[in-house]
């Protein structure tokens, strides 16, 4: 038994004893060609290390760029039938009722409310009665819910770029009569979607 813990274990080949390693294979050979043969004749080593620094730099720059350009204020859905005009000198969109005009119908926050066909046929300005009633009710509801605050009176018009001026003026004036004097036109910021 004491044999297991000594270097003298020549009689027991299964003894599990940790001992100092002996001589390495070919270690004593000083010849260069022998070592070249061992390493694989100067062929590319099988163990390749990929340099990830450049890749991480690229990812970091992308993350920083996306974070700086992130802006949630313009994320407002516009109806597919409406193509907004372009403008440079525009401000950020604010939270307000959205009135969309696509040349045929008028929508308030996505729900169809009125038609503009009659105004185009008549060729003169007219008040859109259904739109007027809806906006007026909304204003009264807002005032009932928040009696202490002054009413901002802001409405945003999403109007297709080919809608004639007569329709634009009619919707504009209807909103003003309904108590929304601060009318804004939604546009696409030049350079963002051209």
């Amino acid at each position: 038994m004491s044999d297991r813990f000594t270097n003298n274990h020549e009689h027991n080949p299964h003894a599990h004893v940790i001992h100092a390693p002996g001589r390495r294979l070919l270690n004593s050979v000083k010849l260069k060609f022998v070592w070249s043969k061992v390493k694989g004749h100067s062929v590319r080593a099988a163990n390749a290390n990929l340099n990830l620094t450049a890749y991480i730099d690229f990812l970091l720059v992308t993350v920083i760029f996306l974070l700086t350009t992130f802006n949630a204020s313009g994320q407002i859905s516009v109806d597919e039938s409406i193509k907004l005009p372009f403008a440079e000198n525009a401000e950020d969109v604010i939270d307000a009722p959205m009135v969309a005009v696509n040349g045929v119908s008028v929508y308030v926050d996505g729900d169809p409310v009125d038609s503009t066909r009659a105004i185009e046929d008549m060729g003169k300005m007219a008040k859109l009665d259904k739109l007027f009633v809806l906006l007026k009710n909304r204003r009264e509801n807002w005032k009932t819910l928040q009696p202490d605050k002054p009413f901002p009176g802001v409405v945003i018009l999403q109007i297709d770029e080919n809608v004639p001026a007569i329709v634009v003026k009619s919707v504009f004036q209807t909103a003003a009569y309904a108590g929304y004097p601060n009318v804004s036109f939604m546009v696409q910021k030049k350079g963002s979607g051209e």
Partner: protein
Amino acid sequence: MGGVDVGGGSGKRAMNADVNLIPFIDLLLVTVAFLLITAVWVTNSRINANAQIPGPPNPEIVVVPQTPEKVLNVAIGAEEFVLTWKQGAVVAAETKVPKPTSKSGEAPKYADLAKVFETEWKTHGSHKDPADMKIDQAIIHSDNRLPFKEIVAVLDALYSPKREMKLGNKTEMLPVFNMTFSIR
């Protein structure tokens, strides 16, 4: 794999430490994917207009008559823009700007008109002091069949000149004009 080589080699423990960068790259990739998905590529903005209906808000309050301010009237014609400064019914100045023809399918842009608006405001504008909170008024006169994109192009030119305005403690650059439509 990134590592830190601190030399050594003769010690008992290896001094060459490898930092596992895979979770870091995973995190970066997930962040890039999230930001790309939530990014807004077409940003919408707004152009301000004003539809203040003339007259006092409360009919019981007697309004002291004041001298009318100079107002810029912008008439969008077929071939030219006519800019008229009016004080009440009196015409103070009139300028005509030729209308450039824009190619079909291309968004109209009136860069020359924007320059004229700036010089007109510098000559005739009433509100130039940064402490002055009022803005010069512009009234747009247009043909009933004029497409909306042309109105917006004129508004874009109208809002191009800006001036300093004190808002509380900070000073901001704001457009010199505020527009409304003429009602006929």
